[in-house]
């Protein structure tokens, strides 16, 4: 009986396992194989390289600079987007005129491809022909959004403009599951709105916010298109994410071995977050 149920489970899972093999396991194997090879676009032959690529990556200052920037960027946008998303969710948790329309508008940025957003930003914020600088100039305000001194915060702000809608949506959904009795009791006990948020809403939403923050952290760790289109990782490597560094290594330097080694190291760096997420989901993984 038990054997039959195992066979049925395997049979039912087999389509998924097949896709997993084709889309994850096989490419991962190829990636690992490439990482262990000297595989340059300018050289026809591919030769075994052992762990040389991993050693070279770990000795490369640009890799660590890109990693450092990526961590700082990912933490900054995650904190900012969670705070803004939480604030927006609180605003939308009450009734006001035009709520449905504004709700839809708030979700628009997340539906736009990041690369398209980046191209739009470049046009809208262009100092010479952009709508935003043009509008501000009418009031005598001169801004240089892409000034090298402010570029980091420009990128953080633009990322927040796109992804706050993501954190907002998930926090808002979590907020809708809060039992109204809790709020009613707090109101009867004379709690102020600030106390309700600090002592009731946040503690109850904490697991949801933690997982949303983790999802954003992992996603922003992989940021590529927006920054690549806006700054190309520069000036120098000051805004170079690890994703941009891997891309340039593979497709400009043409060193697929090194790029694969970096990708594998990146996976190894992100993997420790997985148990945390699984725990938050309270999945029974045995």
């Amino acid at each position: 009986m038990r054997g039959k149920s195992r066979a049925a489970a395997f049979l039912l899972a087999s389509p998924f396992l097949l896709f997993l093999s084709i889309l994850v396991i096989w490419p991962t194997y190829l990636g690992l194989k490439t990482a262990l090879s000297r595989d340059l676009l300018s050289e026809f032959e591919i030769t075994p390289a052992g762990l040389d690529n991993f050693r070279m990556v770990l000795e490369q200052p640009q890799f660590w600079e890109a990693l450092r920037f990526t961590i700082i960027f990912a933490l900054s946008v995650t904190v900012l987007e969670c705070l803004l998303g939480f604030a927006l969710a609180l605003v939308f948790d009450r009734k006001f005129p035009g709520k449905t329309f504004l709700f839809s508008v708030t979700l628009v940025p997340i539906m736009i491809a990041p690369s398209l957003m980046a191209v739009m930003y470049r046009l809208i914020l262009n100092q010479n022909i952009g709508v935003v600088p043009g509008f501000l100039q009418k009031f005598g305000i001169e801004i240089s959004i892409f000034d090298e001194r402010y570029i980091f915060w420009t990128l953080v702000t633009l990322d927040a403009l796109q992804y706050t809608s993501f954190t907002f949506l998930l926090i808002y959904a979590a907020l809708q599951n809060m039992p109204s009795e809790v709020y009613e009791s707090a109101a009867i006990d004379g709690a102020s709105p600030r106390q309700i948020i600090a002592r009731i809403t946040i503690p109850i939403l904490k697991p949801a916010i933690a997982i949303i923050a983790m999802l954003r952290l992992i996603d922003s760790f992989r940021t590529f298109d927006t920054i690549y289109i806006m700054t190309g990782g520069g000036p120098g490597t000051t805004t170079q994410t690890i994703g941009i560094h891997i891309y340039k290594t593979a497709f400009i330097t043409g060193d697929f071995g090194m790029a694969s080694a970096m990708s594998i190291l990146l996976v190894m760096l992100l993997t420790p977050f997985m148990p945390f997420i699984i725990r938050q989901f309270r999945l029974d993984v045995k």
Partner: protein
Amino acid sequence: MNRIERGKMRLRKILTVAVATGALFTALTVAPAQAATEVKMILWPGPEGEAMQKVVDAYNAGQGKKDGVVVKQVLLSRDNTFAKEAALMKAKSSEYDIYFTASYLVGQHAPYLSEIKGVNDKLYLKASIDGLKVNKKQMALPLDTSLHFMYYRTDLVSSLSSAANIAKYKQISKTVLGKELSPNLDAETWNWDDALATAAFFTQKYNPESPTKYGYALPAKNLLYNTMIWNDVLWGLGGNWFTKGKPSINTPAGKAAIDVYRTIYTKELTSPDASQWEYAETNAALTSGNAMMALQWNAAYSELSSTGATSGKVGIAVPPGKGQRTHVHALAVGLNKYSKNQAAAAKWMKHLATVKAMKNYATAGGVPSMPTILNTMVSSNASFANIITYAGKYGYAEAGGPREFDIYAKLAEVLSPAWVGQKTAEEVAGAADAALKSLQK
């Protein structure tokens, strides 16, 4: 026969006629295509892709029928064409028969391309055809030639001749450059002191009466194509990537070239936003009337000569320098070594190498590397005359070998912090040489 049956019969007739027509149409259209060999060619979207489509259409409708070849052009994204090709090449793919390449990439692509034989070198600009040879073998066929011009506002430069402006020019050049200079009204003979002093004169920070806010539009983004423009400064000041086989950015000429860009940015002769500028932003700065001059690609001429503040007022000069130089490269197409349609692809390439095909290309908006064609089209685009003269007289192509593309990118990465004043020339020049050395291996 009732109404419903009559309706059914009518429907049956309509369906029968539709099926028969469809079958006839399919037979007429598909049959010839099956007889011809399809050649798939990659290009990128934009003026080159649009112009090439006209050549492809004309070939498919004419010579292609005689050759038994149908060409299908596939346009990948402009930003990532070469990245996608790199993946295809490394996989030894036969999906596309003809790859898009360029003189700065052909060294990297050469292992995956077949040699092209029977090309008449004399039809092409020397710098363009030679730049596509690897170990003396012609690995790709030139399409567009690209080089740089110093674009400037003719109305503003001519205004420098008044006595009041001469005096002001001397005073501003002393303040900004530490040298008292007189205006040079002939941009064709500018050195970098002339260019910087003129840029300072037309910067409102130093001259509140300047009609332009900034004197210069500097493409200083960390982008390999911006290194190609900076190379004009390097070469113009007597520098080079390598001297006698050794990296030579860390030399007086190399550091002076870095300092030209650094001066433009730190003295605020360009917008602070220029740290993220490339081709489009540079054009926008000029056409909006915010900037007065820029080193920019020849392709910008059509837009600059007909748009906004530069319309009818844009002058062209060779990039400044003691020994003036302009980078030249050719966009090109090469034959995939792994193509299963080598013979058919070669027929199409043979057609592309004809004056007739390139004339079509030029008429449709391309800038072919054939001087005879460019000469006949000067009336429609005045910059064509400059392309021929500058490519021959001042043109150079860097000898970067298989890692040339990589060198451009690496130099942009290492030098761009100094271009925008984050680091000094002294700090980055050594790092640039170290990067070049590592890429020589």
